[in-house]
Protein backbone atom coordinates (compact mmCIF):
# COMPACT_ATOMS: atom_id res chain seq x y z
CA UNK A 1 0.00 0.00 0.00
CA UNK A 2 1.15 3.55 -0.88
CA UNK A 3 2.20 5.98 1.82
CA UNK A 4 -0.51 8.42 2.78
CA UNK A 5 -0.91 11.85 4.29
CA UNK A 6 -4.27 13.01 5.66
CA UNK A 7 -4.47 16.59 4.38
CA UNK A 8 -7.36 18.77 5.50
CA UNK A 9 -9.35 15.69 6.42
CA UNK A 10 -8.74 13.76 3.21
CA UNK A 11 -6.29 10.92 2.58
CA UNK A 12 -3.78 11.64 -0.16
CA UNK A 13 -1.42 8.96 -1.49
CA UNK A 14 2.16 9.60 -2.52
CA UNK A 15 4.80 7.54 -4.28
CA UNK A 16 7.10 8.97 -1.67
CA UNK A 17 5.91 11.18 1.16
CA UNK A 18 7.34 14.69 0.68
CA UNK A 19 10.28 14.96 3.05
CA UNK A 20 9.22 18.27 4.63
CA UNK A 21 6.17 20.45 5.01
CA UNK A 22 7.86 22.92 2.68
CA UNK A 23 8.14 20.24 -0.03
CA UNK A 24 4.47 19.37 0.39
CA UNK A 25 3.39 22.99 -0.08
CA UNK A 26 5.53 23.20 -3.21
CA UNK A 27 3.97 20.04 -4.61
CA UNK A 28 0.48 21.37 -3.80
CA UNK A 29 1.42 24.75 -5.27
CA UNK A 30 0.33 26.49 -2.05
CA UNK A 31 2.15 29.77 -1.36
CA UNK A 32 3.63 29.11 2.08
CA UNK A 33 3.43 32.81 2.93
CA UNK A 34 -0.36 32.60 2.97
CA UNK A 35 -0.95 29.54 5.12
CA UNK A 36 -0.71 28.33 8.67
CA UNK A 37 -0.19 24.62 9.23
CA UNK A 38 -0.83 21.93 11.83
CA UNK A 39 1.02 18.64 11.75
CA UNK A 40 -0.52 15.95 13.93
CA UNK A 41 -2.33 18.63 15.91
CA UNK A 42 0.74 20.81 16.51
CA UNK A 43 0.96 24.27 15.00
CA UNK A 44 4.09 24.69 12.90
CA UNK A 45 5.63 28.20 12.76
CA UNK A 46 6.11 29.26 9.16
CA UNK A 47 9.90 29.48 9.60
CA UNK A 48 9.93 25.78 10.57
CA UNK A 49 8.14 24.54 7.46
CA UNK A 50 11.40 23.45 5.86
CA UNK A 51 12.70 21.52 8.86
CA UNK A 52 9.42 19.79 9.67
CA UNK A 53 9.75 16.21 8.45
CA UNK A 54 6.67 14.34 7.22
CA UNK A 55 6.07 10.60 7.39
CA UNK A 56 3.44 8.14 6.26
CA UNK A 57 0.15 8.61 8.12
CA UNK A 58 0.79 12.14 9.34
CA UNK A 59 -2.27 14.39 9.68
CA UNK A 60 -1.77 17.83 8.17
CA UNK A 61 -4.04 20.86 8.27
CA UNK A 62 -3.37 23.74 5.88
CA UNK A 63 -5.35 26.82 6.90
CA UNK A 64 -5.73 30.25 5.33
CA UNK A 65 -7.63 33.44 5.91
CA UNK A 66 -10.81 34.03 3.94
CA UNK A 67 -13.45 36.73 4.03
CA UNK A 68 -15.54 36.58 7.20
CA UNK A 69 -17.65 38.71 9.48
Amino acid at each position, binding site marked *: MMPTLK*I*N*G*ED*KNFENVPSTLKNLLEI*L*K*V*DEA*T*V*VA*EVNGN*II*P*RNSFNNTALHDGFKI*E*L*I*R*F*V*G*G*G
Partner: protein
Amino acid sequence: MKKLIIANKEFNSRLFIGTGKYSSNEIMAKSIEASGTEMVTVALRRVDIQNPQDNMLAAIDRKKYLLLPNTSGARNADEAIRLARLARAATDINWLKLEVTPDPYYLLPDPVETLKAAQILVKEGFVVLPYINADPILAKKLQDAGTATVMPLASPIGSNQGIKTRVAIEIIISQASVPVVVDAGLGLPSHAAEAMEMGADAVLVNTAIATANDPLKMANAFKLAVQAGRDAFEAGAAGVKNQADASSPLTGFLRD
Protein backbone atom coordinates in the same frame (compact mmCIF):
# COMPACT_ATOMS: atom_id res chain seq x y z
CA MET B 1 -15.50 62.78 17.84
CA LYS B 2 -13.90 61.26 20.92
CA LYS B 3 -11.38 58.55 19.96
CA LEU B 4 -12.22 54.93 20.68
CA ILE B 5 -9.64 52.98 22.68
CA ILE B 6 -9.63 49.19 22.80
CA ALA B 7 -6.82 47.43 24.63
CA ASN B 8 -4.81 50.67 24.54
CA LYS B 9 -5.11 50.95 20.76
CA GLU B 10 -6.69 54.14 19.45
CA PHE B 11 -9.29 54.07 16.68
CA ASN B 12 -10.45 57.13 14.74
CA SER B 13 -13.27 55.13 13.18
CA ARG B 14 -15.99 53.46 15.25
CA LEU B 15 -17.06 51.25 12.36
CA PHE B 16 -15.59 47.76 12.03
CA ILE B 17 -16.03 45.84 8.78
CA GLY B 18 -16.48 42.17 8.04
CA THR B 19 -14.94 40.85 4.84
CA GLY B 20 -17.39 38.07 3.97
CA LYS B 21 -19.83 37.81 1.07
CA TYR B 22 -18.17 40.31 -1.28
CA SER B 23 -18.48 39.53 -4.98
CA SER B 24 -14.75 40.11 -5.44
CA ASN B 25 -11.63 40.94 -3.45
CA GLU B 26 -11.42 44.20 -5.35
CA ILE B 27 -14.91 45.35 -4.36
CA MET B 28 -14.15 44.24 -0.81
CA ALA B 29 -10.98 46.33 -0.73
CA LYS B 30 -12.69 49.41 -2.16
CA SER B 31 -15.61 49.04 0.26
CA ILE B 32 -13.24 48.77 3.20
CA GLU B 33 -11.59 51.97 2.07
CA ALA B 34 -14.91 53.74 1.55
CA SER B 35 -16.02 52.78 5.05
CA GLY B 36 -13.10 54.56 6.69
CA THR B 37 -12.68 51.59 9.03
CA GLU B 38 -9.45 50.75 10.81
CA MET B 39 -10.26 47.13 11.71
CA VAL B 40 -11.56 44.30 9.54
CA THR B 41 -12.57 40.80 10.52
CA VAL B 42 -11.39 37.69 8.69
CA ALA B 43 -12.14 33.99 9.04
CA LEU B 44 -9.91 30.90 8.97
CA ARG B 45 -10.70 28.04 6.61
CA ARG B 46 -8.93 25.03 5.15
CA VAL B 47 -7.00 25.71 1.97
CA ASP B 48 -8.83 24.30 -1.02
CA ILE B 49 -6.15 21.91 -2.30
CA GLN B 50 -7.85 21.75 -5.70
CA ASN B 51 -7.59 25.55 -6.02
CA PRO B 52 -4.84 26.81 -3.71
CA GLN B 53 -4.15 30.16 -5.37
CA ASP B 54 -6.85 32.50 -3.97
CA ASN B 55 -5.45 34.79 -1.29
CA MET B 56 -7.84 37.51 -0.12
CA LEU B 57 -5.37 38.76 2.46
CA ALA B 58 -3.26 40.27 -0.30
CA ALA B 59 -6.15 42.68 -0.97
CA ILE B 60 -6.02 44.13 2.54
CA ASP B 61 -3.43 46.78 3.38
CA ARG B 62 -2.20 45.57 6.77
CA LYS B 63 -0.63 48.96 7.44
CA LYS B 64 -4.00 50.70 7.30
CA TYR B 65 -6.29 48.01 8.71
CA LEU B 66 -5.90 45.95 11.86
CA LEU B 67 -6.83 42.33 11.17
CA LEU B 68 -9.36 40.85 13.55
CA PRO B 69 -9.45 37.08 12.96
CA ASN B 70 -12.70 35.43 14.05
CA THR B 71 -13.37 31.91 15.24
CA SER B 72 -16.40 31.41 13.01
CA GLY B 73 -17.29 27.78 12.58
CA ALA B 74 -16.31 26.88 16.12
CA ARG B 75 -19.09 24.94 17.82
CA ASN B 76 -17.54 24.86 21.25
CA ALA B 77 -14.73 26.35 23.34
CA ASP B 78 -12.09 23.81 22.25
CA GLU B 79 -12.63 24.47 18.54
CA ALA B 80 -12.59 28.22 19.18
CA ILE B 81 -9.33 27.99 21.13
CA ARG B 82 -7.72 25.88 18.40
CA LEU B 83 -8.73 28.45 15.76
CA ALA B 84 -7.51 31.31 17.96
CA ARG B 85 -4.05 29.76 18.25
CA LEU B 86 -3.86 29.12 14.51
CA ALA B 87 -4.89 32.71 13.81
CA ARG B 88 -2.16 34.01 16.08
CA ALA B 89 0.39 31.73 14.45
CA ALA B 90 -0.66 33.01 11.03
CA THR B 91 -0.41 36.68 11.92
CA ASP B 92 1.79 38.80 14.10
CA ILE B 93 -1.19 39.96 16.19
CA ASN B 94 -3.18 38.51 19.03
CA TRP B 95 -6.53 40.24 18.55
CA LEU B 96 -9.47 37.88 18.21
CA LYS B 97 -13.18 38.04 17.55
CA LEU B 98 -14.39 35.13 19.63
CA GLU B 99 -17.51 33.46 18.30
CA VAL B 100 -18.91 30.08 19.28
CA THR B 101 -22.05 29.13 17.40
CA PRO B 102 -23.26 25.55 17.88
CA ASP B 103 -26.46 26.14 15.89
CA PRO B 104 -25.86 26.27 12.12
CA TYR B 105 -29.26 27.84 11.34
CA TYR B 106 -29.49 30.98 13.48
CA LEU B 107 -25.75 31.06 14.23
CA LEU B 108 -26.43 32.36 17.72
CA PRO B 109 -23.56 32.44 20.22
CA ASP B 110 -23.20 29.94 23.06
CA PRO B 111 -22.93 31.82 26.38
CA VAL B 112 -21.29 29.04 28.36
CA GLU B 113 -18.69 27.96 25.78
CA THR B 114 -17.93 31.56 24.86
CA LEU B 115 -17.21 32.45 28.48
CA LYS B 116 -15.12 29.32 28.92
CA ALA B 117 -13.02 30.06 25.83
CA ALA B 118 -12.67 33.73 26.76
CA GLN B 119 -11.27 32.90 30.20
CA ILE B 120 -8.63 30.64 28.67
CA LEU B 121 -7.70 32.90 25.76
CA VAL B 122 -7.35 35.99 27.95
CA LYS B 123 -4.87 34.00 30.07
CA GLU B 124 -2.99 33.11 26.88
CA GLY B 125 -2.61 36.82 26.14
CA PHE B 126 -5.23 37.26 23.47
CA VAL B 127 -7.12 40.53 23.07
CA VAL B 128 -10.57 38.96 23.09
CA LEU B 129 -13.61 40.62 21.50
CA PRO B 130 -16.46 38.17 22.22
CA TYR B 131 -19.61 37.99 20.10
CA ILE B 132 -22.55 37.38 22.45
CA ASN B 133 -26.28 37.38 22.81
CA ALA B 134 -27.57 40.63 24.34
CA ASP B 135 -27.22 39.27 27.88
CA PRO B 136 -26.13 41.86 30.47
CA ILE B 137 -25.06 39.25 33.04
CA LEU B 138 -22.92 37.40 30.51
CA ALA B 139 -21.45 40.70 29.33
CA LYS B 140 -20.43 41.47 32.89
CA LYS B 141 -18.85 38.02 33.35
CA LEU B 142 -16.82 38.49 30.19
CA GLN B 143 -15.57 41.93 31.13
CA ASP B 144 -14.68 40.54 34.55
CA ALA B 145 -12.80 37.77 32.75
CA GLY B 146 -10.71 40.41 31.01
CA THR B 147 -12.15 40.64 27.51
CA ALA B 148 -11.26 43.84 25.64
CA THR B 149 -14.87 44.52 24.60
CA VAL B 150 -18.26 42.88 24.57
CA MET B 151 -20.08 42.51 21.24
CA PRO B 152 -23.80 41.93 21.78
CA LEU B 153 -25.90 41.10 18.75
CA ALA B 154 -28.60 43.46 17.48
CA SER B 155 -30.48 40.63 15.74
CA PRO B 156 -29.55 37.33 14.06
CA ILE B 157 -26.39 37.73 11.95
CA GLY B 158 -27.01 38.70 8.36
CA SER B 159 -30.72 39.24 8.97
CA ASN B 160 -30.60 43.03 8.47
CA GLN B 161 -33.40 43.32 11.04
CA GLY B 162 -31.74 46.11 13.00
CA ILE B 163 -31.73 46.46 16.77
CA LYS B 164 -34.18 43.93 18.15
CA THR B 165 -32.45 43.75 21.54
CA ARG B 166 -32.55 47.43 22.46
CA VAL B 167 -33.55 47.11 26.11
CA ALA B 168 -30.80 44.59 26.87
CA ILE B 169 -28.15 46.53 24.98
CA GLU B 170 -29.05 49.69 26.90
CA ILE B 171 -28.46 47.80 30.14
CA ILE B 172 -25.18 46.36 28.85
CA ILE B 173 -23.96 49.86 27.93
CA SER B 174 -25.00 51.25 31.32
CA GLN B 175 -22.99 48.56 33.11
CA ALA B 176 -19.98 48.20 30.81
CA SER B 177 -16.44 49.10 31.82
CA VAL B 178 -15.12 47.97 28.42
CA PRO B 179 -16.21 49.23 25.00
CA VAL B 180 -19.53 47.85 23.75
CA VAL B 181 -19.51 46.94 20.05
CA VAL B 182 -22.92 46.19 18.55
CA ASP B 183 -22.52 43.32 16.13
CA ALA B 184 -24.79 41.34 13.78
CA GLY B 185 -28.08 42.30 12.23
CA LEU B 186 -27.45 45.98 11.51
CA GLY B 187 -29.02 46.22 8.07
CA LEU B 188 -29.19 49.95 7.43
CA PRO B 189 -27.17 53.05 8.34
CA SER B 190 -30.05 54.21 10.55
CA HIS B 191 -29.59 51.03 12.61
CA ALA B 192 -25.92 51.82 13.10
CA ALA B 193 -26.70 55.43 13.98
CA GLU B 194 -29.28 54.26 16.52
CA ALA B 195 -26.73 52.00 18.19
CA MET B 196 -24.27 54.86 18.46
CA GLU B 197 -26.94 57.26 19.75
CA MET B 198 -27.67 54.71 22.48
CA GLY B 199 -24.06 55.05 23.57
CA ALA B 200 -22.51 52.01 21.91
CA ASP B 201 -18.77 52.53 21.40
CA ALA B 202 -18.66 51.01 17.93
CA VAL B 203 -20.51 48.75 15.50
CA LEU B 204 -19.47 45.88 13.26
CA VAL B 205 -21.10 45.57 9.83
CA ASN B 206 -20.63 43.05 7.04
CA THR B 207 -23.71 41.70 5.25
CA ALA B 208 -25.48 45.05 4.87
CA ILE B 209 -22.54 46.46 2.97
CA ALA B 210 -21.31 43.37 1.11
CA THR B 211 -24.75 42.46 -0.22
CA ALA B 212 -25.93 45.96 -1.17
CA ASN B 213 -26.35 46.68 -4.87
CA ASP B 214 -23.62 49.29 -4.52
CA PRO B 215 -21.32 48.16 -1.68
CA LEU B 216 -18.99 51.18 -1.93
CA LYS B 217 -21.81 53.66 -1.60
CA MET B 218 -23.32 51.66 1.25
CA ALA B 219 -19.93 51.50 2.99
CA ASN B 220 -19.76 55.27 2.84
CA ALA B 221 -23.33 55.52 4.09
CA PHE B 222 -22.45 53.46 7.18
CA LYS B 223 -19.34 55.58 7.71
CA LEU B 224 -21.45 58.73 7.80
CA ALA B 225 -24.18 57.15 9.93
CA VAL B 226 -21.74 55.96 12.60
CA GLN B 227 -20.23 59.45 12.79
CA ALA B 228 -23.72 60.95 12.94
CA GLY B 229 -24.81 58.65 15.73
CA ARG B 230 -21.67 59.23 17.73
CA ASP B 231 -21.86 63.01 17.27
CA ALA B 232 -25.49 62.93 18.38
CA PHE B 233 -24.52 60.96 21.49
CA GLU B 234 -21.80 63.48 22.29
CA ALA B 235 -24.04 66.44 21.40
CA GLY B 236 -26.60 65.37 24.01
CA ALA B 237 -30.02 64.95 22.46
CA ALA B 238 -33.04 66.50 24.17
CA GLY B 239 -35.57 63.97 25.45
CA VAL B 240 -38.73 62.62 23.88
CA LYS B 241 -41.97 64.45 24.64
CA ASN B 242 -45.51 63.09 24.53
CA GLN B 243 -47.14 66.33 23.51
CA ALA B 244 -46.01 68.73 20.80
CA ASP B 245 -43.61 71.60 21.40
CA ALA B 246 -43.91 74.43 18.89
CA SER B 247 -40.81 75.31 16.86
CA SER B 248 -42.26 78.75 16.14
CA PRO B 249 -43.10 81.27 18.90
CA LEU B 250 -46.50 80.95 20.59
CA THR B 251 -46.86 84.72 20.99
CA GLY B 252 -47.10 87.71 18.66
CA PHE B 253 -49.72 86.11 16.43
CA LEU B 254 -51.37 88.34 13.87
CA ARG B 255 -54.93 88.49 15.21
CA ASP B 256 -57.64 91.15 15.06
